């Protein structure tokens, strides 16, 4: 049931985002808005949370990460300098509302409850939970009779307990860290591991000889957020992001960090 729900939920979220953007594009149709009017501050002001590695992290005065690279690439394609505004999660959406920022690129998940105030671009990364296995286990429904490793107390732990109520039993193997859970799957102490996509990709970079399959179990779609009252910016940002997807730049950036 849950797998089916996920099957429907993901296209629905993406469809809702695309529909909103299509409507925006229609609303924004007309003579092109000059950049000076579109970005009156002369820069793409990006709200970013520098406490979220590998998406954004501040070491001394050096800001780096995947979100930073995406923002800089968007700025390049919009022909604007990028001005970063450092914010914690609590202040991110308010900064859009109070016009402190033009866009938020901060590992933000598309949140359908915010669509009155915020427009989201298409997703640029899925940070959901992935099932990692080198034994052909491709979905949670394949688990009965096998063992699953995960980080104790994590979202994967919650998911595992949730699935135990829905399908035939499987053995649960909680570990202290996600890397321990992945070690268990790699070394054969468990048939699969359930971890978030970021942890999985970072682990696989460190263990290039191990080639398991990764299959998403949940979705956590990261997107660029813009002000709903400035639809021209939403369209411009989304078009720039689309061009990054089309020419492979987005993938290059993701692979640089994960």
């Amino acid at each position, binding site marked *: 049931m849950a797998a089916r729900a996920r099957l429907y939920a993901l296209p629905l979220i993406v469809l809702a985002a695309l529909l909103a953007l299509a409507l925006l594009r229609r609303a924004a149709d007309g003579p092109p808005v000059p950049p000076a009017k579109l970005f009156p501050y002369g820069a793409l002001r990006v709200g970013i949370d520098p406490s979220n590695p590998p998406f954004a992290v501040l070491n001394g005065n050096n800001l780096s990460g995947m979100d930073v690279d995406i923002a800089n690439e968007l700025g390049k394609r919009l022909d604007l300098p990028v001005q970063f505004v*450092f914010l914690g999660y609590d202040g991110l959406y308010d900064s859009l509302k*109070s016009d402190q920022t033009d866009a938020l690129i901060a590992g933000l998940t598309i949140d359908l409850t915010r669509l009155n105030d915020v427009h989201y671009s298409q997703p640029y990364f899925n940070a959901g939970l992935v099932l990692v296995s080198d034994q052909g286990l491709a979905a949670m429904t394949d688990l009965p009779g096998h063992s699953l490793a995960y980080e104790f107390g994590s979202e994967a*732990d*919650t998911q595992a307990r949730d699935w135990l109520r829905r399908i035939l039993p499987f053995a649960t193997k909680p570990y202290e860290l996600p890397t321990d859970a992945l070690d268990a799957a790699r070394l054969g102490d468990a048939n699969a591991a359930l971890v978030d996509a*970021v942890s999985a990709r970072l682990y696989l970079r460190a263990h290039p000889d191990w080639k398991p399959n990764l299959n998403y179990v949940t979705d*956590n779609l990261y997107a660029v957020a813009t002000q709903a009252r400035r639809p021209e910016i939403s369209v411009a940002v989304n078009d720039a992001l689309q061009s990054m997807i089309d020419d492979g730049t987005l993938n290059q950036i993701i692979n640089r960090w994960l």
Partner: protein
Amino acid sequence: MKRPRAQAALATARRLLPWAIRALIAYALLAAFVPAQPRAPLGAPQTVQTDDPQLCMHTRLIDEVDEWKIQRSLALTREMGAGTIVEFFPWAYIEGSEGHYDWSSADRIVKQAQNQGIHIIARLGYVPDWARKLDNASDEFTTLNTLPPAAYPEFAQFVAAFAARYAGEIDDLIIWNEPNIAFEWGYQKVDPAGYASLLQAVYAPAHAANPNVKILAAGLAPTLEPVGSAVGLNDITYLDELYDAGAQPYFDALAIHAYGFTYPYNDPPAFDKLNFRRAELLRDVMVKHGDAAKPAFITETGWNDDPHWALAVSPSLRIGDTIGALDYAQKNWNWADKLCFWALRYPVPTLSYPDGYTFITTTFQLKPIYYAVQAFARGLEQDQALWLPAPVSTPSR
């Protein structure tokens, strides 16, 4: 001339009347098919049984649509052994238009908490649209945290109305939240003297409305921002300046936010370090200004176990530090009336790292930290390993 027109109107009304009746019947039939809201009838009054009277949870109940979720959250709070909650009661929700109060959302929380035997500390803030316009400036770029000084009397009036309505049920009122960061001060310049004026505006009307009320100065955001920063001001410096601005007579207790971040619960405090025991430095400022007799309430504390946030720890460390903090506060902080953990549960997930602070998921799944704190509050020792040892590099399959 008038007669034919009246006749025409009458004919139109006669023609439309059957349709209006049909529409009414259809509406009534459709309404009958709408499922009724799940009810949350009050059961027998409960009491909280706990070995730790300091234990308290910060809840997020005001945004709940379904009353049964409020009831369930409070029952789980009681079952965990927490006898107190901190809950936010936004001014903007209650006095949406000037002078017209809608207490219904607040009432149902108070009613359900009383039934569970749980004491409430109320945090008051969030400015209604009409009050944000009182400085005659455009409200285009204001936020719910923008409180123009011209609206201080209106806010004070609201606080007094709240104090009067819930006298004897809610006597502890936190005025505002984290005024030492620009975001919580409506992106205005952080201003200890301005906040002192707000406390002064509120204090007398609140006490007149409820003589037993306790006004708590807001918990400050743990931050190292220096003087002159556009983002905020170091909480220790801010509290010092708040006293210098003459705020002392206008609050009865201090709320403190003491997050552990990546440090263990017993890490020693320092001016340039954000950790759990930083609360002791804030307490030192109170003592320095002759306020040792005033209690403090740790109204926000805890550790976060998001997998990637730079200021988070693993779930296992979070549990260890949380239990350590409860034990430490019991033994060392007799000046701390409560130790309130952020947060029991969110009505909807934030879909970001703040979800790593919760004890219960939005879908009411209890996280392991819930059981660990419950065991502590019952005086039980945890003697079972909660996780497996790290795998060794010899394949066992």
